[in-house]
């Protein structure tokens, strides 16, 4: 069933764009990626190892050195 009204896309400040409903994403090389989730997080930071799907790689990281570092 199609949702009434236009597709809503939420652009988050820290990372992905959140799209409601199943989506098919087409990459520049023509590859298509399908997601059936109720909400799909599309990577906007380009750091995702599963690009174009967000894998939380946009998170801030803090380095902790080992005991002998």
């Amino acid at each position, binding site marked *: 069933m199609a949702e009434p009204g236009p597709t809503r896309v939420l652009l988050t400040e820290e990372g992905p764009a959140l799209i409601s409903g199943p989506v098919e994403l087409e990459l520049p090389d023509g590859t298509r990626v399908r997601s059936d989730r109720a909400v799909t997080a599309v990577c906007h930071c380009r750091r995702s190892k599963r690009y174009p799907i967000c*894998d939380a790689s946009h998170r801030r990281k*803090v*380095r902790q050195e080992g005991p002998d570092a």
Partner: protein
Amino acid sequence: MTATLEPNFLQQVAAPDLPAPRGPLSEAVVEALRGGPLRPVDPAGAEPYGDDLQLALHCCYELHYRGFAGVDAEREWDPEVLGLRRELERVFLAALRADVEPGENVPAEVDALLVEPVGPGVRGVSHHLQREGTLEQLREYVAHRSIYHLKEADPQAWAIPRLNGAAKAGLVTVEHDEYGSGRPERMHALLFAEMMTELGLSDAYGAYVEHVPGETLAEVNLMSLCGLHRSLRGASVGQFAMVELTSSPGSERLVRGMRRLECGPASIRFYDEHVEADAVHEQVVRRGVLAPLLEAEPELAADVVFGIRASLFLGERMGERLLGCWDRGETSLRMPLAPGRP
């Protein structure tokens, strides 16, 4: 294209056997559920996170999930068992309230969870399994986790009727995904069961209760405690948020560890699915559950923080148990696992 299961996890209806008691409290519960009289016991003074109290609580809670073989389903509402459960919960909850620093600033708590510590100094089970853990240690980890994951999302489902409006809708959005979005073959509990089978473990519900220590039972008991008490619904949401916010990077580490150990596709699939699913669940929990919940019921903020910190606290205790045992070259379980199938 995962291995066919026999019998299929989704068709399992047999309830597990009652476990062997680990002390006077669990003995009283198990005896009573076997049909004997409930012997008077006093949980006050018991080790709140210890094997005996946690197993006793686990048995009380399982009556609300899948029950036990040979135990009448109506015992779920036996006032004597419920009365003892209440006493056990008081001891557990009082210890957590004492061990966990109180707070009310949910956004700060969330921000802290979203910073990912990296590098050689980070000590954690998923870091260990990514870098150097053995296949045996990975199998042990999965056995510990099975207590929760074979009923994944069930403890948090108790919170649904206790929320209202947008927060309820947001929680259901995530839960729906955990249950496979209407497709049973995608249920996370089933994906976990398929991983267990591939790793040569039993996917029977409750098969590893006898193996796991109090540290492991305590984590899951916290979920049931918060889920079953309306007064703790804020803590239930906090606990759920903690899992959803931290799972994606941890799952990525486990995927890498499993690739390093050359695990099969069903094993990799469970954590692989969680990298992507929980990157979305994080967003939905923050924007669709926490934000509307705190707007509607700002007085729940302290309980949300309590739920986050209590689950972190118990998660660290469990992690220390595993890593400590492995450092000493011992099994982290109460008894070793049967060897995996070749």
